């Protein structure tokens, strides 16, 4: 075990995979200077500019070239800088990467990792703050990962790089500095679709992912002070998502709250809520609840930004109400 930040855990994962497999390479804007957040710091020096490469500000070419390079036997990791900018490469991801294997009848594999930093990061405003994970969960062919902890950011990034499917890998910008214990094992892999129980509890189930997991955990802590034991589940990946673990928990607690930073309308929480309602609706003690952002862009000024944030107190209030 080593104590690493979420950022350094991701950097260690990539460094280990670059060392392990000569077909792995990374490309994106400013990687030669460590990437916009420093998550590639030192890697170009270690592995050379061909394997950790700068790219022009050409998102369609970054992602499209990665599709071609992945179909030609390499394993590219592409950095999109902000998930918002990946929208300049939606054709390359949705029409090309996600479908090549299927539409070519299994002739192609697209082992590609698309790193897309998501989420609100103080005063980054409307074009640098979005959480669009549900868009990609909607696309057959893609895996969608949203790690919440340093250990997961190592084990899931390594799993993503070794995976033969295209993986949309969404790191949360607000978590870069979060430190925790991270396994040293070079084969430490966190499988997709296996949720993590952050905290056990029998009164209610709170499902979340990415940075919102920590808000949910803080809410559960506060609820415990009121005598309410909430189980907090970190989904880790939203496609695939760990339906069994969520259903088992809700079957026990009879109450489900899903919370995410993304807009609530058509967010992935709706999928979870619908699934639980379909499978367990008659057994629930109270209707399923969702807490996501209102359907409004993220603002620059702190009070405007905070107005669309799902706070710890909002989760506490919702669960308290569900207990009545």
């Amino acid at each position, binding site marked *: 075990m080593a104590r690493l930040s979420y950022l350094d855990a991701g950097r260690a994962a990539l460094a280990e995979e670059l060392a392990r497999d000569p*077909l792995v390479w990374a490309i994106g804007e400013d990687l030669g200077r460590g990437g916009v957040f420093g998550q590639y710091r030192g890697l170009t020096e270690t592995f050379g500019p061909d394997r950790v490469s700068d790219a022009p500000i050409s998102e369609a070419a970054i992602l499209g070239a990665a599709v*071609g390079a992945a*179909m030609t036997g390499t394993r590219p990791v592409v950095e999109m800088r902000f998930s918002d900018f990946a929208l300049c490469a939606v*054709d390359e991801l949705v029409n090309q990467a996600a479908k090549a294997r299927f539409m070519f009848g299994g002739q*192609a594999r697209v082992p590609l990792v698309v790193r897309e930093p998501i989420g609100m990061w103080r005063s980054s405003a409307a074009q640098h703050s979005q959480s669009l994970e549900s868009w990609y969960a909607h696309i057959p062919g893609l895996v969608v990962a949203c790690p919440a902890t340093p250990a997961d950011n190592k084990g899931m990034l390594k799993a993503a790089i070794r995976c033969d499917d295209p993986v949309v890998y969404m790191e949360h910008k607000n978590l870069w500095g979060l430190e925790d214990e991270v396994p040293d094992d070079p084969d430490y892999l966190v499988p997709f679709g296996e949720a993590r129980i952050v905290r056990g509890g029998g009164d209610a189930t709170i499902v979340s992912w990415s940075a919102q997991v920590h808000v949910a955990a803080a809410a559960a802590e506060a609820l415990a002070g009121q005598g309410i034991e909430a189980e907090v589940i970190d989904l880790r990946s939203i496609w695939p998502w760990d339906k069994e673990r969520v259903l088992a928990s809700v079957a026990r607690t009879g109450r489900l709250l899903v919370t995410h930073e993304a807009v609530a309308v058509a967010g992935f929480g709706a999928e979870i809520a619908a699934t639980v309602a379909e499978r367990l609706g008659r057994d629930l003690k109270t209707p399923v609840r969702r807490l996501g952002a209102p359907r409004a862009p993220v603002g620059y000024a702190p009070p405007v930004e905070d107005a669309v944030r799902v706070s710890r107190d909002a989760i506490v209030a919702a669960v308290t109400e569900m207990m009545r």
Partner: protein
Amino acid sequence: MMHRIRALEEVALRGLADKVVLGAIHPSIGQEAVPVGVMGHMSADDLLLSTHRGHGHTLAKGASATAMMHELLGRVGGNCGGKGGSMHIADFEVGMLGANGVVGANIVIAAGAAHAIKLRRENRMVACFFGDGAINRGPFLEGLNWAAVFRLPVLFVCEDNGYSATTRTATMTAGAGPAARARAIGVPAVEVDGNDVLAVDAAAAELIGAIRAGDGPRFLHARTYRITGHTGADPATYRPAGEVEAQAHNDPIGRARDTLLAAGVAAAEVDAVRAAALAEMEAAYGSARAAPYPPADQAFVDVQDIGSPAVEAY
């Protein structure tokens, strides 16, 4: 080869009329000299990225006509098992990495395939075909710049048939055209009469020679003419009266025939090539019509390993 491409598409158009070719097909009738002239300089190891109008590219790269016909009819035995159809034909065995339903999308993919070749220090090259309409899409700029910056082994081939789907490209395109745009990005470009198979062959030889020498990407602007409509179902009434007729003397197959006859090749010999091509494609069509559709469970195969719909689709 030009006869084989022509015959394949003529039979495929009949398949459309017979309602067994189910989706849209985009014939390249009249454009056959471009892939034939280029692909003669490529081996099976080299890679090809094609377009929605890609039957000629695919056949010239070495794909089986029978497998292609099965694919056009959506049948078992197609290159993609019947799951891709005309617009997504691919044959990785012969280095054909896919037609593409999105105009210009293959340009950046081709750059990436060439990037992988460079990273793996392989001695191969990539050819990327697209139409004149594609030069107005962003990936044209991004892909050419990428290939030039990383000095990648890729030949960009612009098949300029004058039409962007059903609109005259000239009315929607500023500047001096495809070659000028390529040169502005730093990619050396050659312009050629794309209906003269020998001229295409000579230009491709020069450009591919430079690419194989490690000089980076090259660009071929081939002027040609699409004798049919945009799709097999498009009567192309937007074209001025007499335009197609005026192009009759310009048919690349007719011109190649004239060249061969002038060189002393017997007409019967040339006609036999045409007859053999038609017979091959008729047999392929018969084979495809007799083949079954893939079973419904193929809908869930080859989507993804993790989170596969074969395990759980909902």
